[in-house]
């Protein structure tokens, strides 16, 4: 299609069946205002906030995640998509709190001490929120004390740690060792990620899983939560 004969797309004139996939496309293209508008339209049409979240935003980000994983999208595009998602989330958040919508689980996440890199961590944070998790983001450069404090206060289901540098990745082991010492290690799932990491490394330092990218992090987190629920219902 050429730009010239492109018609203006009026979101409010689309049926629900057309609007939702359109919102997926708009999320994919990182179109913040369009996503925001779509969320308002669906709410006005009487959609439950939780349905808007799952059918429009979470599903849209799932598609973004697949193309990110497959090397079709890269960090800039995914960040723009996640920012668009966040705009939609900001509208839904207070409504979700009111309606007592189900939560996937809670994650505390942070980049380890000495490491300023938070691009990947922010992506995980946003994609996890996009998947319906509650995320407490500790930011960058976190000594073990920060993690311990957040664990105490937040009682997360998942602890996420990120490191981009060879010089900072060993610090993940420092944190995990401390958790073991304090007898806290088995209270939650520990997921680690970052460019220099790999599966063997995560196993060796005592994490539960290595997540290659934000899409994998979301899938892994969901799996662990499902297992936890199974264990709980079996017990």
């Amino acid at each position, binding site marked *: 299609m050429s730009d010239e004969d492109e018609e203006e797309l009026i979101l409010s004139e689309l049926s629900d069946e057309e609007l939702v996939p359109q919102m997926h496309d708009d999320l994919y293209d990182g179109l913040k205002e369009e996503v925001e508008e779509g969320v308002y339209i669906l709410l006005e049409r009487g959609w439950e906030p939780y349905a808007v979240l799952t059918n429009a935003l979470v599903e849209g980000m799932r598609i973004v995640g697949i193309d990110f994983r497959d090397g079709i999208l890269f960090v*800039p595009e995914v960040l723009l998509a996640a920012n668009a998602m966040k705009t939609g989330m900001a509208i839904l958040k207070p409504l979700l709190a009111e309606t007592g919508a189900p939560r996937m689980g809670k994650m505390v996440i942070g980049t380890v001490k000495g490491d300023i890199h938070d691009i990947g961590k922010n992506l995980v944070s946003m994609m996890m929120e996009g998947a319906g998790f509650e995320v407490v983001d500790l930011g960058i450069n976190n000594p073990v004390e920060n993690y311990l404090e957040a664990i105490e206060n937040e009682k997360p289901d998942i602890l996420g740690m990120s490191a981009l540098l060879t010089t900072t990745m060993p610090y993940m082991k420092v944190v995990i060792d401390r958790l073991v010492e304090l007898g806290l290690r088995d209270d939650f799932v520990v997921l680690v990620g970052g460019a220099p990491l*790999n599966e063997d490394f995560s196993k060796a330092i005592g994490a539960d899983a290595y997540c290659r990218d934000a899409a994998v992090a979301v899938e892994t987190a969901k799996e662990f939560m499902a297992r936890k629920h199974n264990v709980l219902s079996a017990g």
Partner: protein
Amino acid sequence: MLEDDGELSGADGQDVRAKFDALLGSRGWILADGATGTNLFALGMGAGDSPELLNVQQPEMVRAVYRNAIAGGADLILTNSFGGNRARLKLHAVAGRTRELCQISAQLAHETASEFGNGTIVAGSMGPTGELMEPMGVLTPDVAVDIFLEQAEGLKAGGADVAWIETISDIRELDCAAQACFRAGLPYCATLSFDTAGRTMMGVAPGDLANWAADATWPPLAIGANCGAGAADLIRTILEFPKLKIGMHLIAKANAGIPKWEKGAIHYDGSPDLMADYAELALRSGAKIIGGCCGTTFRHIQRMRARLETFKGGATPMLEEIVGKLGQFSADIGPDPKDRNRRQRRRRP
């Protein structure tokens, strides 16, 4: 070997260019050093500590890394200043010491090189700021240039022959660092980390780097790849450049395999023999400046040197040979943007 003239280089890079040409003219390759960070770990640096602070706190440790690299056979060493920019040093509450820490990293390198008196080239390492450029992040080009300028000036004041911009993923950040080097009067080389299916995490392909270098207002002396995934991936990336006819020297600086946690420390699984194979494959792939990145010790450098010195020539390697000698690729090369099945915003039917 060249004489160590002890002079600082001009912005045109005449001095360092002459050194490059002399080495390349006589034997066709320059051996760069191995890792800095992982070698500092081996000497006792703590996890999460600032490597750059060691320049003043434990200069002997930093000298030892330099000395090992030169003794191992490196013609060119990188300074311990990778994270020596104020955006990163603020984490350690020493942003105000950026210039000083960079200057000292270069001074220590210069002094150590002088001990050997063999004209070792001192390259001032400049890593990424760790911040995202607009519109994804808040870093503007002006601020980025300013951050890198402080680092480049410090490196130049400390006697670096050339700046070595490395492990960059965003081409715009590279452009800012290049501009800063120019303003500091320091010639530079530039390598990106192609760690995601043949591209940088920001989606930059080897061809994008080559195009950028060809059009750059302040062109680099050499470009190439460093870090990323394992050595096999890096050679596959290097193979892309000769097709692009880049018209400048090509750099390969691969990690010594992939990191593993063994006996309480990080250990990269690539042996010195594997890195010797890597060095030969890099040369046969068109790289002229060859070194290691994370996990590469002086033992690796020694073997790489020996292999390059006895190299008798060979054809451009096929992917099978690369995998056979260096191990599997971490991922397949992603689709070309032109062929990508990118989704488009739909319009009303």
